[in-house]
């Protein structure tokens, strides 16, 4: 021990710092996991609200279905060359219903509180499906079966009130039926390290659009 050899236990110079570093690393990991987790955000309620594709715009409309507010009183019947031009309170309406460009194809010209059937008789405003069925008969049949459209409630409706069926105009705006639903929920959130965004070894051929080496390109 007292000779001129290397100091005793010389390998401790490497071993002790290595052990210290290892324990520091482990402590660091423990300290990290013991930190308080941040409070998760609530899911925005509009992403799980039960509504139809027209739900948001319908909420803001107060005159829909309330034609009698003005038409309870006698209003003049327009001339033939003006039956496609919305006037007065309806001037803001743009009819984009395909080939159907005449207002009085659907609305009863002699009684604007009602819709009109094929034979000229009235259809109540509470039954828009009878009106739409005039041209969209196959869709109407599908709607009655449940293939088309939306209904909620109980999956085995046994009594009144078990099933709430949404009628045509609750999803489709009759003057502009194309869906413009814009409550789109965000994409899934993945930690970036799980998302492979580029080839790791460069393109390997025409199939590299779909393959990374031999594995199909997959992200979680």
């Amino acid at each position, binding site marked *: *021990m007292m000779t001129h050899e290397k100091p*005793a*236990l010389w390998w*401790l110079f490497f*071993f*002790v710092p290595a*052990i*210290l570093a*290892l*324990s520091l690393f*482990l*402590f660091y990991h*423990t300290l990290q*996991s013991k930190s308080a*987790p*941040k*409070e*998760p*955000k*609530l*899911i*925005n309620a509009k*992403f*799980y609200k*039960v509504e*139809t*594709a027209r*739900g948001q715009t319908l909420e803001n409309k107060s005159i829909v279905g309330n034609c009698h507010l003005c038409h309870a009183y006698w209003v003049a019947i327009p001339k033939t060359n003006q039956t496609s031009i919305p006037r007065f309170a309806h001037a803001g309406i743009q009819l984009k219903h395909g080939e159907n460009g005449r207002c009085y194809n659907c609305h009863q010209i002699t009684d604007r509180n009602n819709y009109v059937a094929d034979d000229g008789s009235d259809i109540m405003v509470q039954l828009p499906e009878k009106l739409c069925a005039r041209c969209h008969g196959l*869709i109407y049949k*599908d709607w009655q*079966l*449940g*293939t*088309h*459209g*939306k*209904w*909620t*409630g*109980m*999956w*085995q409706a046994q009594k009144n009130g078990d099933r709430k069926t*949404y009628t045509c105009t609750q*999803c489709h705006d009759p003057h502009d039926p194309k*869906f413009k*639903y*814009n*409550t*789109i*929920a*965000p*994409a*899934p*959130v*993945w*930690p970036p390290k799980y*998302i492979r965004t580029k080839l790791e070894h460069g393109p390997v051929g025409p199939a590299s659009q*779909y393959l990374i080496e031999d594995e*199909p390109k997959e*992200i979680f």
Partner: protein
Amino acid sequence: MADREYFDSLPPFESEAQTELSRRDFITGTSLAITSVVATGAALSPLLNAREVPTKDELLQKHYKQLTTEDKKTIFARLETEVKNDYGADVKIRDPQPLDGVEYAYILNIGRCIGCRKCVYACMKENNTSRDPQIQYIRVLKLNQGSVDLETSSHDYPENEAADPNYYYMPVQCHQCRKPPCIKVCPVKATWMEKDGVVVVDHNWCIGCRYCEAACPYHARRFNFSKTTIAPEDINPDMGYLSNRIRPLGTMEKCTFCLHRTREGKYPACHDACPTGARKFGNLRDPESEVRKILERERVYVLKQEIGTLPRFYYVFAK
């Protein structure tokens, strides 16, 4: 005497010289001992996280199929207290039984899905899935028109790429198959198919090996890598034991067709949330149900039909 002289003439034992402890040796020995103890302590520190160590009741809990009604009452009470302690929310856990003569089927109208993902978030809200890391049971694929080519599909398209008429959208969730590969591979039989067709998981029996996740051809199963993170106001307090309770760390979870709702006659959460009415649900054994009528009339597609899982989730191309 000669022996004594002989022994005296020998050099002294090494052990005598070594009983003297030099300062150098003392310091090195002590520091080694301290650092090794510290390193062991740090390595074992995850055990301090008490949640990972099960309580006696949890450890001795039997498989769901062997539980009596009293067992279930005590277990549900214990789970409700755990949720209250961990998350601060009052919940009610119950166990609705499968209805007789019922086999659920789900139909998704690809012609009407616009890829808005409301079903995904309604499912998260209803089923108390973890928000961070985010677990979603439903995955909406965006596919090119013209074929069902899953390899060129996208499942993380951003919001501004939804409702695009040049593509079509196909949500995928657990198909509750009639021949599920996932229940065949479970080594502990923690997952099984119930009488009404729903494939369920007993989360207190699941060991978290993820074989079922590997076996599922639709990637419907999700694993809890961390403890579920959810805000107490966002928790749905109406919980079913097999469906939407807050899952423990290290167990599998998946869509259960909201059996806490459907076994009481209601529709699943995703069905109600869909704004275009692309989702249809019902009892396949009832000839008057909409699912029977749709399957009899529309063009039906089954995802990965060649694998033979016979799913109870059908896609239709309808108007």
